[in-house]
């Protein structure tokens, strides 16, 4: 009976899909790599760009998308108040104006943000984009029918906590004012210096109320960007975009929009995607992928091949894989035990399990190793490359575990994931040297997430990961370490259950800053301060390597998304 093996394989692939979906919020090439792959001749307009993905572009509705900086394919159709700077590397981590004339004017101690729309902005049907449409777009993102977006708007906007969206609540959100058709004002319940970053998310896309079709809007969202949807089969399984003739480059400094047509195909096996990109036959020569990384296996093959290696784009995304402790669970209530484990970890074998040094960089800080996050290098419990078993034993002895101890490491059963069995077993093997016997508790992925994100069921010792909603320390540290963000009766991300006055105060203080560089420095300092508590053991920051078709030009990979920016790619 061959069918079962089918079933098996399919699920395996499905989980691979998840990996890559996670990867989609990941990294891009350093400039030099980019040059290599971009080719030297200048990019031209025209042609069809094919996108080969494993996961379908589901919920193609600006209200439902959860993106970092407006997403990749989505940002071809959805323009937002601000957007990410479409440049390679660190420069790409900056926030820049999009629909708005600037990145926003703060007032009243950064609790009020005012934006003015550019002139001559049009939808795909030629009608003008107004600030009211942006307000409406944000309001509908509160509708339970259209759930899925990031939590910030609900948390920050005045009186938005219980707002149910325009379908149930006709009054609308008083926190957003549109004094005239080009001005929009946001009233926040606390200072948020990073509001410009938030304004890059697709919820800030204008939606013409007349054209809103509720849950069916994803079928054909009204485009404000360079491309419009001509077909969207089976909820993003096959998406075809063509030029939106009403879009003018004059109002959009960021999107290059070289190709005439973008054909997004999905449901492919990751190994097939990479196989096709490397073969680059026919239409695949002008193909890219927005969600599939080179796996270790493919990397091993690619690095052996000059021509292929030249077509690999490398990117970095603000992302950290780490071990999380729950100090409410013995023996992890004892800092010495947590420190011992920090010393004992063998990062090299963990990194190998994650795909090797080319796909993962050892992490000793919780913040990603990028300037925009305020990265401040520190290594408080130096474990070296392969772990410091001696020091670990010593600490264990002090903690009262002379003849070692036995702990249970919880992880997800989904293969290839950052929280996967591979990494768990690597740690299991490494901690053996320090006299720590690790029992593995592999859970089905949903079960795993339920458990680690619920205060009631959170295990004491488990694998976790965190990615940035935008390249800054704020969204990276606050959800994990802000005591006031501990969620008792829902999805909780403060796994260390840390509720420390000084930390909370510092977070508030930094949020007041509208000078993002200054803020970054203080985030870095805060990171080190928290790190001393050994509530987490940072393991590695993933590196994302992706192939592009042989005729692809002008590959731009920012540190914001870490993946090549479709709006910049040319096929001629």
């Amino acid at each position, binding site marked *: 009976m*061959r*069918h079962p*093996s*089918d*079933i*098996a*394989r*399919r*699920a395996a692939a*499905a989980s691979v899909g998840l990996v890559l979906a996670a990867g989609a919020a990941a990294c891009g090439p350093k400039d030099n790599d980019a040059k290599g792959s971009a080719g030297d001749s200048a990019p031209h307009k025209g042609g069809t760009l094919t996108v080969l993905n494993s996961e379908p572009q*589901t*919920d193609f509705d600006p209200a439902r998308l*959860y993106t970092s900086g407006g997403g990749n394919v989505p940002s071809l159709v959805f323009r937002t108040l601000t957007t990410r700077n479409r440049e390679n590397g660190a420069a790409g981590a900056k926030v820049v104006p999009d629909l708005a004339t600037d990145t926003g004017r703060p007032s009243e101690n950064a609790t009020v943000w005012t934006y003015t729309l550019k002139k001559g902005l049009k939808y795909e049907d030629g009608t003008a984009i107004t600030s009211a449409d942006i307000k409406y777009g944000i309001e*509908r993102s509160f*509708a*339970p*029918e259209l*759930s*899925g*977006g*990031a*939590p910030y708007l*609900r*948390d920050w906007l005045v009186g938005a*906590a*219980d707002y149910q969206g325009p*379908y149930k609540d006709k009054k609308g959100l008083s926190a957003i004012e549109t004094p005239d058709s080009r001005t929009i004002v946001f009233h926040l319940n606390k200072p948020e210096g990073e509001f410009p970053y938030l304004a890059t998310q697709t919820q800030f896309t204008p939606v013409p109320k007349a054209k*809103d*079709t*509720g*849950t*069916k809007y*994803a079928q054909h969202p009204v485009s404000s960007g360079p491309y419009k949807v001509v077909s969207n*089969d*089976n*909820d993003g*399984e*096959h998406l075809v975009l063509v030029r939106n003739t009403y879009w003018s480059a004059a109002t959009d400094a960021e999107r290059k929009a070289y190709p005439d047509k973008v054909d997004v*195909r*999905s*449901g492919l*096996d990751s*190994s*097939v995607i990479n*196989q*096709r990109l490397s*073969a680059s*036959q026919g239409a*695949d020569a002008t193909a890219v992928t927005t969600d599939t990384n080179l796996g270790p296996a493919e990397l091993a093959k690619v690095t052996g091949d000059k021509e292929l290696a030249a077509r690999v784009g490398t990117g970095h995304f603000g992302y950290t894989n780490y071990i999380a402790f729950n100090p409410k669970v013995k023996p992890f209530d004892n800092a010495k035990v947590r420190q011992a484990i920090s010393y004992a970890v063998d990062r090299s074998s963990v990194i190998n399990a994650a795909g090797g040094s080319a796909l993962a960089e050892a992490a000793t800080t919780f913040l990603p190793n990028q300037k925009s996050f305020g990265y401040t290098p520190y290594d408080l419990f130096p474990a070296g490359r392969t772990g410091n078993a001696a020091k670990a034993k010593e600490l264990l002895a002090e903690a009262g575990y002379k003849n070692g101890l036995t702990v249970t490491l919880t992880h997800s059963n989904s293969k290839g994931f950052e929280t996967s069995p591979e990494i768990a077993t690597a740690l299991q093997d490494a901690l053996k040297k320090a006299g720590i016997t690790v029992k593995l508790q592999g859970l089905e*992925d*949903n*079960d795993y*997430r*339920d458990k680690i*994100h619920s205060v009631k069921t959170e295990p004491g010792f488990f694998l976790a990961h965190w990615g940035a909603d935008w390249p800054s320390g704020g969204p990276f540290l606050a959800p994990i370490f802000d005591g006031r963000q501990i*969620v008792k*009766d*829902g*999805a909780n*991300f403060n796994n260390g259950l840390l509720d420390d006055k000084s930390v909370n105060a510092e977070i508030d203080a930094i949020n007041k800053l509208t000078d993002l560089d200054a803020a970054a420095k203080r985030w870095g300092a805060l990171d080190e301060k928290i790190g001393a508590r050994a509530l987490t053991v940072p393991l590695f920051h993933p590196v994302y390597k992706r192939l592009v078709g042989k005729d692809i030009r002008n590959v731009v990979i920012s540190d914001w998304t870490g993946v090549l920016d479709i709006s910049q790619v040319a096929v001629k």
Partner: protein
Amino acid sequence: MTGFTGFALRRAVGAIVTLLAISVIVYVVFYATPGDVAQITCGPRCSPAQVHQVAQQLKLDDPLYVRYWHFLQGVVAGQDYSTGTSVERCSAPCLGLSYRSDRQVMQIILGKLPVSLSLVLGAMVLWLLLGVGTGVLSAWRRGRLTERALTGVTLAGVATPSFVIGLVLMIVVCGQLELLPFPEYVPLSADPEQWMWNLLLPWLTLALGEAAYFARLTRASMLETLAEDHIRTFRAYGVGERSIVGRHALRGALAPIIALNANDVGAMVGGAVLTETLFGLPGIGQELVHAVNVVDLPVVVGMVLVIGFFVVLANAVADVLYAVADRRVVLT
């Protein structure tokens, strides 16, 4: 055929009972499976308040039996639902709406079905030709070298995991030799020729292993028939080996072939996920996996019901075919 309506009726009733049971099982099972649907649907960072709103939106707070009752109502009478801006009709048989995308499950399935059917039915033709052909040949050449060779081949076929076959086929045919483009589903309606070329490899992947089984089955049951008395009669009347094997022995072997074929076709409509994934064919199986991963109950139930439906249907068809083939059989 006498009593056919009676048979059809009994089968229909049986099928409905079976499908009802299946839907109940799936409901209960997924009620028990971990994974907070509302949380997953709403997104990982949703606040409890939001999650609660979504739960209400999806009617997840109702007790299980109520939800199941609504499901049944939908199937029988259809149901209305709101897109937020307007009220839409999901006409009977309505399998409900996907939690994740708010699309009608029936629409989702209808979107996937052509792919699965093209894949499975196409492959079926292939494996029947290959399998039965090989079986007949080795039964005819029994005891000779040809048979030994064929037996070896088929055993190899049985013992090779099908994803290996598929992978190798794709690497060699598309990658190295570049004989075919990497497969991608093209609807039959859109371009029959492209449809065929693109499905060729998937068909082979699915068919090769299957063909091996059919070859073994065909050979075995033909040898059994060859040992029966009436074969002796035809030998005693100078009827040639070709006609004895090709006409009489094969005819006797049809029954088990039909039966096994029915089972496999039915099961593969939802079970050919390996091939679907490997070749990026957006079929039922792939969708089912995805739905299971995100605990999208309505879609899972719908898919399982459709798969179950095809299994039941396939078996009923098999029985009819069999009764047509052999008048001695009484349909029950």
